[in-house]
């Protein structure tokens, strides 16, 4: 029990942020109205994705330095979990855009680059499928993973700032901290981020354990 405190914390925080996210008061604003609540669901997805991809890069580096198969499995499973969160991030963003921008996919730079960043990781998964030999696959995939990570950072954090975007916090649009004058939203937003990151990490450990059991069965 004492070892799984972070799982309980994650579950409690996600439940709290979901309930409070729908029921707590939000500032009344034109255009945004109640859709500002998407902040509690959309943004944590991206944070969780970044954390999971960073975990994956960490294990890829570990794999290259000591060639332990376990690190390769951890790297691929955290990418799997991260991709799941990325897809959820894109979907929640598209639903929000449908109501505030009038169109689910308006080819906004932020949307395009997020989609391309996910393509990088789909390419990583395709690369893994293309190689039959286990150790070779692990090594080449680790190298591509480390190579792709800085590109993803450039795609998500640098390039959108270069051009106009409708996304809050970009292109001269105010981010949520401009609306959150009495810190009500922060009380929900920060726990939501932490909760979803913990849940994401939990999903990744589960995926890893399943794949480790499957691996032992076949040997």
């Amino acid at each position, binding site marked *: 029990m004492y070892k799984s405190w972070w799982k309980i914390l994650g579950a409690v925080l996600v439940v709290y942020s979901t309930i409070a996210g729908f029921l707590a008061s939000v500032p009344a604003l034109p255009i945004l109205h109640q859709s500002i609540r998407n902040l509690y669901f959309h943004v944590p997805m991206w944070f969780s994705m970044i954390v999971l991809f960073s975990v994956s890069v960490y294990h890829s580096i570990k794999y290259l330095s000591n060639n332990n198969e376990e690190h390769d499995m951890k790297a691929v499973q955290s990418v799997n979990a991260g991709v799941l969160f990325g897809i959820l991030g894109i979907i929640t963003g598209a639903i929000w855009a449908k109501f505030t921008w009038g169109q689910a996919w308006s080819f906004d730079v932020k949307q395009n680059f997020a989609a391309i*960043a996910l393509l990088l990781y789909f390419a990583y998964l395709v*690369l893994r499928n293309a190689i039959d030999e286990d150790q070779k696959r692990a090594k080449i995939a680790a190298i591509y993973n480390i190579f792709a990570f800085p590109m993803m950072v450039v795609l998500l954090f640098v390039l959108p700032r270069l051009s106009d975007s409708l996304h809050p916090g970009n292109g001269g649009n105010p981010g949520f901290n401009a609306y959150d004058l009495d810190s009500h939203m922060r009380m929900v937003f920060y726990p939501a981020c932490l909760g979803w990151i913990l849940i994401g990490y939990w999903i990744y450990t589960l995926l890893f354990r399943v794949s480790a059991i499957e691996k032992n069965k076949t040997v």
Partner: protein
Amino acid sequence: MQLIKEVKFLIGKELLLEWRSKYALNGVVLYVVSTVFVCFLSFVSLRGVTWNALFWIIMLFASINAVSKSFLQESKGRQLYIYTIASPLALIISKTIYNIFLMLLLTLIALGFYTLVFDYVPEDMGLYLVATVLGSLSFSTIFTMISAIASKAGNGGMLMAILSFPVIIPVITVLIKLSKNAIDGLDRSVSLDEIGILLIINVLVAVFSLMLFPYLWRD
């Protein structure tokens, strides 16, 4: 010092091989020239944005063809031979430098022929040249590393395209923006951001290639 000697020797080897067969250069130049000609026959007259976009699309495919040869073409035996006589760092540096020269030559020939055929010159030709130089630099650094990964995976052209497109898309978007500024003849100070981003991406890719290639090379 040993490294510089090895790099010089390997570049010499590449040039000698190229000079003997003249296959890569002639093939790719013919590829570019015929593509430009096909585009001319189908568009007849082109201006501004479309002219620019078409140029970069032609260059993208030409450079994939040109640079992917660097590793995919080497036979297993020759790779083993180079492995015994040179350090991996010397190999990746020499291949990248050789590819940069090849791409610069190719891009200049392509740009010359392209402006000639379509009878259209961008407002700010100097800035456009800077964009093409930066473009060939980025194409060669990125594609050299990716072709090394693809050749190790032993699954040639298909994998090359899947792995490189997500990485090259951000570069292409910045390049198109930069060259669009040149076409419109905007003041050069406007384009400093894009030039900076391209240089940063190049440095990032170069550093990661140098760090990762020794692991990739060792079988």
